[in-house]
């Protein structure tokens, strides 16, 4: 995104919006959290990242829930309870969706889709081998 005083409403325009990659507009989960950095007293706080993942959602419900969801994720989850953090510099545009300068297929955001393809979908007759196509 370019400079030029573009004003954005972080809650209305970013939080809980669909994240998509720039190549094929592939969905990559939701913007569940936004990380802000407070710096020197003379400098405004800086937006540094968008976070996505169940632990972030759990923290919003109750901070006490976050470690429980992380623990469950480590034991059962494909992403091992790790929160996917996207640097704000990778945000290309804000519209109905948040477009990122990221390849969805190479990001951890699609870990569940890849797991399902490897362990479930490929065994369904007629589905073809999605991973090798």
């Amino acid at each position, binding site marked *: 995104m370019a*400079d030029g*005083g*573009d004003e954005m409403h*972080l*809650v209305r325009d970013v939080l809980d919006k669909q994240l998509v990659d720039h190549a094929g507009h592939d969905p990559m989960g939701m913007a569940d*959290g936004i990380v*802000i950095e407070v710096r020197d007293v003379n400098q*405004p706080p800086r*937006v540094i990242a968008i976070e996505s993942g169940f632990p972030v959602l759990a*923290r919003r419900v109750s901070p006490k829930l976050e470690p429980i969801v992380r623990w469950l994720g480590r034991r059962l989850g494909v992403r091992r309870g790790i929160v996917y953090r996207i640097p704000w510099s990778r945000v290309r545009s804000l519209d109905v969706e948040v477009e990122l300068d990221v390849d969805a297929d190479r990001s951890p955001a699609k870990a569940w889709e890849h797991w399902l393809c490897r362990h479930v979908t490929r065994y369904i007759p007629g589905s073809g081998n999605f991973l090798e196509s």
Partner: protein
Amino acid sequence: MKRRRFHLELLLGAKVIDREGKFAGHIEEVRAERLDGETVVKDYLLGRGALAQRLSITGLSTQAISLLGGRNNVVTHRVPWDKMDLSDPRRPRLTCRAEEMEAVG
């Protein structure tokens, strides 16, 4: 000053008190802008007006409140970033008095 990070989503709805300990409102929206290649926080919006704006129901909610006989008082207050003390993000404080906040909208 040591750099600290906090999660904006946890700031949403947080009760803000002013320099004198008086209630100023709840944080409902955070506005940002591009500056020198960075995205920085410009100001915080407090009040029911900001909530209605965030939920995109400004017109609807004011009409509904009027129909129900309520006071149509959906004011938004704007707090510039340098007037908000976030040393404890769970307890944001104004560095000025609540009366000094600018009403917008």
